[in-house]
């Protein structure tokens, strides 16, 4: 279909493409094979297109080239390339994939290879019926899109893809003549629509079980939370807009600046990497060591819908005091106020929790905890350590809080700047950052802050998590995105406890407590709309977001909890997934039995016209009039008139009407049961008056 865009303007950039392609004869004048092939190529192009942002450039170029080449062969009705050409290109694709990712396993190499295979398979399409491999690869590629995004837009695009693939499949099984695309796509849509009830039933009732095996950890290493932090490994943080969690507050929401969602607490530092103390999950066998926590103010009740972060750590509002039991997981608070599950959470969870934003995290229970928060690796960042000692000496007598405040002041005044692309840092990353380059993002600020404090003799540690949400909330839900991942610091103030300090806030106050993330420049359409009617634009936007939220809540977040809610509504007391499986199996077998019964009835089905005439013949015979099964109503009407004379006129009229209804120019499709009734009652009357 892209080919038809090659218009008649010679100066168009498509002119070059057009020279290499034969003259476009028009969609309807193409030979059948060529048309079907081009349609399939267009569907494949559409299916692969959303991957454009994830795939390496060579893969896109290869796919486009192969599809265009195949289109050209189809238009010229030329021979397909030989097997060795295909094997050569396949080997090249494998080599390039390995070159791009250093592996052939995992999500992205897999997607790259699947796209390459699908493109190459089109060069092997000889008969329409050979196309099954392309269809199945196509369905698989559609699924891979959902690994990246499950938004409404992606769903709509993929719905079109499924429709296109089914249409191509239907076309392949209409071997006669030249069926139109509209006809084939109508048949495909009908098939899918009739299948929709089955889909809905399976979607609602299919038990949502956990992952069957560990999912490779790739795809999340780029952004978001993890159990470790490493400076210098990341030169740039990709702004990942994926949603990490949605929070719904029962009462008033805390101010944005208070929305710190506490994740892994990183205390141990080996010069390169910051790691947690203890296990990154809460083992079943050990009793939890609860935090020493004093809270003030009214507790905040809130509900969290947590996306699968593939961590055991559950980022929750500081300081969450209580978490409602979560089905299938045991979630406890540790003494560093981190909430941990007993295993990584690989599914979407929804649960309620209670928090207080005014709190004091108190004394350690373990001997030597503060010691852990003072250790610095020997031989790393020597200039910062020296600088920190000098700094401490210049603030003689200051307590930890005064030192921290002075440090924040130092950051504010000495030319530090916040950037998401700070470039590469070397072995002594903190030295480079703190004394030389002075630009970085939250991780650099938090790490340098903690190193300086430790060198100055103040126990300190890094806390990672999320800070801030999207504003305004959509349908009352505050959306926390992966791009809101944050790192801040905590230091120990003797006599008080752990105190939060966010050095990033000292240099980029709008990063903390900002109401909205930096808005991207508006597109042309949005700009025009905004200029014409700002309120309309805002309303459209909020309607869209509300729809998106419904989508998220009802389609994407439909998980075990919601399934059990459905079961409870049906009347199961304490639903389990076995109940779900039984209900599903029961419903499906019920449907199958209903189908079998229908088929049996259909087998014994008698044409309604035949049934009606049979009743009428019985009625005639009861009046003593012969009626053979081959005789038409008109013949019978004649015989009624001859036998009964004027008394039978009414019966004969019914028979004539029946004849007209069935055989005349404007015949009806179905018999009229009223005629049968009228005939039967008249026959009864005649029987009653007839002399015996």
């Amino acid at each position, binding site marked *: 279909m892209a080919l038809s865009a090659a218009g008649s303007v010679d100066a168009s950039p498509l002119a070059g493409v057009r020279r290499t392609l034969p003259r476009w004869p028009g969609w309807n004048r193409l030979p059948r094979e060529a048309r079907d092939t081009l349609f399939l190529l267009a569907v494949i192009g559409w299916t692969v297109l959303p991957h454009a942002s994830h795939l390496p450039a060579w893969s896109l170029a290869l796919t486009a080239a192969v599809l265009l080449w195949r289109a050209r062969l189809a238009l010229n009705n030329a021979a397909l390339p030989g097997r060795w050409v295909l094997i050569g290109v396949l080997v090249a694709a494998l080599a390039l994939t390995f070159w791009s990712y250093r592996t052939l396993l995992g999500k992205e190499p897999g997607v790259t290879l699947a796209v390459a295979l699908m493109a190459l398979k089109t060069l092997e399409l000889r008969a329409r019926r050979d196309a099954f491999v392309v269809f*199945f690869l196509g369905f698989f590629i559609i699924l891979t899109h959902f690994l990246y995004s499950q938004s409404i837009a992606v769903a709509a695009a993929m719905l079109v893809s499924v429709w296109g693939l089914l249409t191509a*499949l239907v076309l392949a099984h209409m071997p006669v003549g030249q069926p139109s695309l509209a006809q084939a796509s109508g048949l495909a849509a009908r098939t899918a629509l009739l299948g929709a009830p*089955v889909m809905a039933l399976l979607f609602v009732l299919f038990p949502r079980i956990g992952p069957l095996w560990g*999912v490779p950890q790739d795809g999340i290493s780029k952004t978001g939370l993890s159990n470790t932090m490493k400076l210098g490994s990341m030169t740039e943080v990709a702004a990942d807009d994926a949603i990490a969690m949605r929070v719904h507050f029962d009462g008033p929401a805390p101010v944005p600046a208070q929305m710190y969602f506490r994740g892994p607490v990183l205390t141990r530092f080996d010069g390169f990497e910051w790691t947690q103390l203890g296990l990154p999950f809460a083992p079943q066998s050990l009793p939890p060591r609860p935090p020493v926590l004093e809270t003030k103010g009214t507790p905040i009740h809130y509900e969290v819908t947590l996306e699968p972060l593939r961590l055991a750590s559950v980022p929750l509002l500081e300081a969450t005091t209580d978490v409602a039991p979560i089905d299938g997981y045991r979630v406890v608070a540790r003494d560093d106020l981190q909430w941990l599950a007993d295993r990584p959470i690989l599914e979407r969870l929804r649960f309620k929790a209670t928090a207080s934003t005014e709190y004091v995290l108190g004394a350690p229970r373990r001997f030597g905890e503060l010691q852990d928060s003072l250790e610095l690796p020997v031989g790393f960042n020597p200039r910062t350590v020296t600088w920190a000692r000098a700094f401490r000496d210049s603030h003689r007598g200051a307590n930890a809080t005064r030192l921290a405040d002075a440090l924040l002041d130092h950051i504010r005044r000495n030319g530090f700047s916040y950037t998401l692309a700070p470039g590469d840092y070397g072995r002594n990353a903190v030295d480079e950052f703190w004394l030389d380059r002075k630009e970085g993002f939250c991780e650099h600020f938090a790490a340098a802050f903690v190193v300086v404090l430790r060198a100055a003799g103040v126990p300190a540690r890094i806390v990672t998590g999320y800070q801030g949400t999207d504003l305004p909330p959509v349908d009352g839900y505050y959306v926390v995105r992966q791009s809101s991942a944050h790192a801040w610091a905590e230091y120990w103030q003797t006599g008080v406890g752990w105190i939060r300090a966010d050095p990033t806030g000292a240099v980029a106050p709008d990063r903390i407590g900002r109401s909205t993330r930096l808005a991207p420049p508006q597109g042309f359409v949005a700009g025009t709309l905004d200029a014409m009617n700002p309120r309309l634009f805002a309303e459209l936007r909020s309607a869209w977001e509300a729809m998106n939220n419904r989508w998220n809540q009802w*389609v994407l977040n439909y998980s075990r909890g919601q399934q059990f809610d459905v079961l409870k509504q049906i009347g199961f007391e304490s639903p389990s997934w076995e109940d779900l499986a039984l209900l599903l199996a029961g419903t499906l077998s019920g449907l199958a039995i209903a189908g079998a019964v229908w088929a049996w009835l259909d087998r014994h089905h008698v044409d309604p016209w035949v049934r009606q005439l049979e009743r009428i013949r019985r009625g005639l015979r009861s009046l003593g009039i012969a009626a053979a099964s081959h005789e038409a109503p008109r013949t019978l009407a004649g015989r009624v008139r001859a036998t009964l004379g004027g008394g039978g006129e009414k019966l004969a009229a019914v028979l004539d009407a029946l004849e007209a209804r069935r055989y005349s120019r404007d015949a009806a499709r179905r018999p009229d049961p009223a005629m049968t009734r009228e005939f039967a009652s008249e026959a009864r009357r005649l029987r009653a008056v007839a002399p015996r």
Partner: protein
Amino acid sequence: MSVPVAQALTAPWNVRLRVRRWLAARLPRTDTQLLTQGNIYILPTRAGWMFALTLVVLLLASVNYQLNLGYVLTFMLAGSGIVSMHVTHGTLRGLTLHLKPVAPAFANSAAVLDIVMSSPSSARFGIGLRLLEAPAATLAWTDVPAGGQANAHVSYVPAARGLHDVPTLSAETRFPLGLFRAWTVWRPTARLLVYPEVEADAPALPAARPVSSGAQARPSVGGEIEGVRAYRRGDPLKLIAWKKAAQALETGAELVSRDTSSSARQELWLEWTACGRLAPEQRLSRLAAWTLAADRADADYGLRLPGVDIAPAEGAAQRARCLEALALWH
């Protein structure tokens, strides 16, 4: 579509074929077959099994990555697959197959079965017809319009002369998604009359003889023209029936000369004994070729076989009478 059935038929070690033939032999014969629940079979195709495998892979991926849209995709495809099974079955259900009277055919050349398919309800797409024992590549595809009829031709090559049952036919469809194949097996009642194979490059027609016994027929220029016979070397040009010759040459037959006889009527007899020392079947082939030649020449001809004697006549009826006698002679 023409298939040498003989090959398929001579494979007694093929157990599957024997079982299939035994099953087919149990079917009642009818020339008009209404397809119902009871005589349509349906099974997944290889592509159907592959589709099921794809669904399993998609489901595993959805479970493992907790993709709700993956579930939607998987279940949508599963639903479409289930619906397609019913559509495939429904494509055949309610269809009526009717075999038109079968025209006789010659052995080792194509016999055409003319089949009318009619649908009382919706349109049907992609229905393929073939002999049950012929390979799938020989399917003749037809669409049947809604409430209408469509013709399909299935041809095959009968191996031997005689009166044979029309072979068992099979109609199948994979519409709409190709995941299932529904088929039916149909044994028509009609029988096919197979004439002997026509001998290629048969020698010229034998000479016509005068009716009066003993008198030697002598072609002459003088007498009255009585009929025509095949051209013989030495016939003068003006004896050639040019009008007929033009037709005859067009169809590849030989020239025709006017037969003149001054004295007696002459008759063309196609005789068993005139075929030299050929084997019986080859004699029949030659006689069939002669019958066709004589018919093309619009001659009066008769046929003499051991036990069969058909008086000279001409026209389509004579041709059919003679060929039938040749087909059924034993």
